[in-house]
């Protein structure tokens, strides 16, 4: 009861997933159910039949206001494996410049009877906005909004961690790099804390760590060697090139020297620590190729798990709508 009293737009009256916009407001039980459902889909590639009929006859729309081939492709693949029909819309920013508002775009596509929108947008809060205005019976999945959230990426990272570590509770996890601009980091921190890890650390220079980072439930480190000590999981964040322009960093070279991950630095972590990166990676900036291609790296597995996690979230949302007609 207390769980749903704050009126989370993502959940229906029974606490089931209607939209997947953010990790915020979702409890451990629900996150675990997403991981368990993903587990059942992840087994698929080994079997002869790669498709399940869960979403046969449903129309799913990729609504991307920000280009991202990788994320869009994994969502598309996930939808197809669930037997759904997929529409792709790359809405250039010029559409809004022509006077069409985001709501106009939404109404136009709704007229095509799509039951799910996968939304990526450069502004924080865009997925919430679309969910609030979408027709009843339409699910919205956030594929990244501004600096706010990227919950499917976070869940595929949780899936990867669970596959390698099993239990979340004893883990210490370090997130390294540009936390300030990272929607992935925000979602990861929420997911890790909800799943009950021992400690989440963020590591980076003051310019890339939000001023109120501690309120997210993390310990802040500015020294990589110190921050990596005894951690079980190291998550490296992508560094955007434009960060040099905003006077946030002096150079890539200095960044790599201070925060780039090398095998030597990885020695500080636990011997069985795994290394993750949400991609796309800048070799020689965030980490050495030696680490990226080394035995601790689980980066490629993250990519393949992404499809299973997205299948899980999509099927759960559609099922909620099927069982509770609006």
């Amino acid at each position: 009861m207390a769980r749903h009293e704050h009126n989370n737009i993502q959940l229906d009256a029974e606490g089931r997933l209607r939209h997947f916009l953010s990790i915020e407001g979702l409890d451990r039980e629900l996150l675990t159910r997403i991981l368990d459902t993903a587990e059942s889909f992840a087994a698929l590639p080994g079997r002869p039949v790669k498709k399940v009929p869960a979403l046969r006859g449903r129309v799913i729309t990729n609504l991307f206001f920000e280009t991202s081939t990788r994320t869009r492709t994994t969502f598309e693949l996930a939808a197809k494996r669930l037997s759904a029909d997929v529409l792709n819309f790359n809405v250039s920013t010029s559409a809004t410049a022509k006077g069409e508002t985001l709501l106009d775009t939404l109404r136009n596509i709704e007229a095509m009877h799509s039951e799910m929108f996968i939304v990526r947008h450069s502004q924080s809060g865009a997925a919430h906005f679309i969910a609030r205005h979408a027709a009843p019976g339409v699910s919205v999945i956030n594929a990244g909004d501004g600096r706010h959230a990227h919950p499917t990426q976070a869940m595929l990272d949780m899936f990867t961690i669970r596959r390698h570590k099993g239990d979340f509770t004893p883990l210490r996890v370090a997130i390294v790099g540009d936390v300030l601009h990272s929607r992935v980091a925000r979602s990861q921190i929420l997911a890790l804390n909800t799943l009950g890890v021992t400690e989440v650390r963020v590591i980076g220079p003051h310019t890339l760590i939000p001023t109120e980072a501690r309120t997210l439930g993390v310990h802040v480190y500015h020294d990589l060697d110190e921050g990596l000590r005894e951690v079980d999981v190291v998550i490296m964040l992508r560094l955007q090139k434009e960060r040099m322009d905003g006077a946030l960093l002096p150079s890539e070279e200095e960044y790599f020297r201070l925060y780039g991950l090398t095998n030597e630095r990885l020695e500080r972590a636990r011997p069985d620590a795994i290394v993750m990166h949400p991609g796309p990676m800048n070799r020689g900036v965030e980490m050495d190729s030696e680490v990226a291609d080394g035995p601790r790296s689980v980066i490629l597995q993250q990519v393949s798990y992404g499809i299973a996690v997205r299948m899980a979230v999509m099927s759960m949302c559609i099922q909620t709508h099927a069982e509770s007609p609006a």
Partner: protein
Amino acid sequence: MNISIVNGRLIDPANDRDEPLDLHIYGQQIVAIGEPPEGFEPHETIDAAGKIVCPGLVDISASLRDPGSGVKGDIDSETRAAARGGITTLVCTPDTDPVIDTPAVIELIHRTARKLRRTRVLTTAALTQGLKGEQLSNMAALQAAGAVALSNGSWPLANTLVERRALEYASTFGMTVMLRPEDQHLRAGGCAHEGAVATRLGLPGIPAAAETVAVARDLALAEHTGARVHFHALSAAGSVRQLREARSSRLDVSADVAAHQLHLTEMDIEDFDANCHVSPPLRTLADRDALRQAVADGTIPAICSDHQPHEQDAKEAPFPETAPGISGLETLLALTLRLVDEGVLPLREAIARITCGPADLLGLPQGRFEVGGGADVCIFDPQADWTMSRDAMQSEGHNSPFDGWDFSGPVTHTLFNGRLVYRRD
């Protein structure tokens, strides 16, 4: 028309009045307070039993969007909202289209408002031409046309030399300069207070330092130039601290605060509520409390609506892309009275902050009851409650975060220049 307002509790902070007194109006003027003049025959008697009769409210910062496209509002719609809010003197901001940087625009606004006869509309003229922050406006001509102050609207001057010259030139004519202290570089495209909530929601932040840095700079220039500087819409505790210090060293500076800043905080932008997207942004509880304290002790003598009506489309977008601002005329009194309910300051002081307080800042004769003075009156019922509803708003802009809030003291009558311009049904 002769009107008597009887049986009410008359509160007139400027004259230290708070007692049961009748008010008698002849034509546009107050002719007696207390007993009616001999032989006075009212055509209408307003029974204000159980109600409070106070001077019509004075709001020193409202954007009326007129001249303009009309999409966000115009003088007709916004003075209707003012009348419903008990406001009889409005000082409009220069961010119209075209900008208030020529006497012609001032005359146009005054003419339109005079024709409507719903509330007094005064103007703040642009400090720089086109509000561009480059060339000084024709201040003497604007003053002669009736401008009561100068301001650069929501576009703080980026160039300190232009600011220095603007303050110096304005001081030549003894004009008050209203500044919105904000450092544009530190604002850096932010849309919410750089604090815990913006961190969690991933909203680009505006640090409190964007304001405090500008306050420090503006205070230094005020001291250097001797200009009469007024800070509009303070939002940060650090700004209040600097203001207090400056005033104690007898610098001629003043400030106002927007009514919503005294009630909302960064917590209210949870769920990306675009109606809580304002500029300056809603800050922390500590900032809100510092602003409340400054209003209570008179460091900030004026509460304004910072009225900024918007059409629906302007607020229907992802939070960072929405237009900042609240349509605030119809909640100015309500939010001020709520401070009394919450024990921030006594009723008489609260009324002073929205009547004589703001009037005195600009040297206006309004905001008080004087025999022989203009009959601008607001009557409200402290015993009644009302629920704010967006749908009932008279303003063209329905962008209020207070929809559904329960308030006390609905305005029952508003009189402007001796004429009843609003009556609650």
